């Protein structure tokens, strides 16, 4: 196995940054959306569901392309941000957004499965004990959703670690700036001589995900114990 170059270490650091940021950023939104879909009746619910699942159905490259259209200089959001001096594309932020968008449906789905298993009588109990909706949300639904959140965020983290298609479009493939592990692997693999380097990076990626898996399992076990 070939030793890693400084650029590879950069890629590893960037990948970790992106995955962690994307996961943490998405957690509250994922929880909120799963809650809306599971417990609240409102018009346009189906639309929301479709919207969330879109990034799953489309090839990541297409997602990336749409994100580029949205966040680019002439994009609906990009032009607004441009005015206040914020540029997202070709920055690590764009990579984070790409990972977050692509992994979001996975997160939401996991949290939903967990939420749907909550006994509605527990929610009833908390309300008769004086808890308003937001209170019940934080003290009953949230803690009982932890297994789903843990599972969902581990899916999301892993997915972010492997996200390539959307990232390369909105963030570019700039070594040391936006080149994450998958992008680096792509570059190595593009040349017949880079194969072993690509493999090394692959193994790093696997190792990271194993560690994260362990952490999550431990967290899930802790959450399962009530005392």
């Amino acid at each position, binding site marked *: 196995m070939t030793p890693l170059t400084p650029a590879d270490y950069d890629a590893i650091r960037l990948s970790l940054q992106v995955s962690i940021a994307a996961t943490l950023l998405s957690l509250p939104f994922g929880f909120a959306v799963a809650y809306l879909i599971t417990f609240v009746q409102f018009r346009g619910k189906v639309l929301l569901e479709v919207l969330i699942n879109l990034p799953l159905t489309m090839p990541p490259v297409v997602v990336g392309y749409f994100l580029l259209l949205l966040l680019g200089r002439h994009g609906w959001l990009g032009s607004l941000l441009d005015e206040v001096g914020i540029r997202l594309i070709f920055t690590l932020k764009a990579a984070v957004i790409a990972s977050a968008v692509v992994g979001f449906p996975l997160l939401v789905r996991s949290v939903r499965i967990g939420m749907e298993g909550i006994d509605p*009588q527990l929610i*009833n109990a*908390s309300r*008769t*004990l*004086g808890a308003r909706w937001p209170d019940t949300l934080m003290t009953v639904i949230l803690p009982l959703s932890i297994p789903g959140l843990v599972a969902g965020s581990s899916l999301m983290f892993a997915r972010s670690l492997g996200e390539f298609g959307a990232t390369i479009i909105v963030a570019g493939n700039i070594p040391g700036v936006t080149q994450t592990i998958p992008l680096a692997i792509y570059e190595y693999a593009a040349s017949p001589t880079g194969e072993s380097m690509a493999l090394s990076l692959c193994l790093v990626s696997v190792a990271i995900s194993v560690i994260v898996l362990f952490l999550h399992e431990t967290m899930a076990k802790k959450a399962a114990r*009530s*005392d």
Partner: protein
Amino acid sequence: MRLSMKTAKSFGEFTLETDFTVEGQRVGIFGTSGSGKSTLVAILAGLVAPDRGEIVLDGVTLFSSDNRINLRPEQRRIAMVFQQHCLFPHLNVRNNLLYGYKRCPAEFRAVDFDILAAVLKLDGLLDRGVTNLSGGEKQRVALGRAILANPRLLLMDEPLSALDDTLRFQIIPYLKSVSEQFGIPYLFISHSLVEMRLMTDTVLAFEGGALVGQTTSEELARKRMGQSAVGYINLLELDGMTERHGMCVYCWKGGELLLSVGNRDTVSGLFELSSKDIILFKKHPEAISARNLLHCTVIGLFESASKLGVELKCSEGTLVAEIVPEAARELGIEQGSVVYAAVKASAFRRLATNGVTRAEPPCQ
């Protein structure tokens, strides 16, 4: 508390129709399995919306289909002891108990946590999770959680069914005292006539979703006396205990009573005496094993099933005895008759009257 409830709620073939107004702090709900008791309290708590109707509690409209009012559960401040407990699996016993307490406006927080935990025998379990508790332990946590919420109204759905008698009769007086002390009215569901008699004044009886009777628990007890295993329960306040020949002698407003129960520390207390445990004589009986013989006047008679309830007055005290009509005919018992009532010393049963009860070795 004044509760008026005129609602209808259907589940498939089952329909619960209620139309009553009830006043009083201690209301019982009585009825066979599946008669709609749990549904009724769920409607009151705001967990099930009736199909139509109106619910007014102490002048506040909780629900009205005409006026499109439906207060949310947390706005009603009605706490509930769920039949299936419904404890929060992610919280330990202490935090389950404190869930409602913490959410209760500070000015209403009155119930003392430590006393409650002690009476419910939960003090050793406070840091345990609730998933592995025994059935009775779970039930006590559910009960404690609702009481600590210091609600405006407390709904209790068979809150004592999984408890042994000792515990049950220690908890009942506590429940009563909490309700009195802090002015918390309650609705109490139970299949036990004894609990009903001890815990409630007014009783609503349901059958297959319909209210079939509203009566005082006194009336219910009289009506059911004929069918009930325990008959009518006389409640006697006794005090001034002294010992004689190793037995306890108490003062009752109807005279001196000899009891085989009691406790050297208990100089006073509330005792129960079943109507079945009183035998009437027209003449003073001789050589009788019963330790108490009261000279009484019959002040009333009522019928229940094929039995006759005889209301007796012994100086200042009153008692209800139960006899068969034939005996009344034979003994010539009627309003105004003078009779002797024989009661065994062992027929009395002491009911703890305050939250913390002591161990109770018998008198001797």
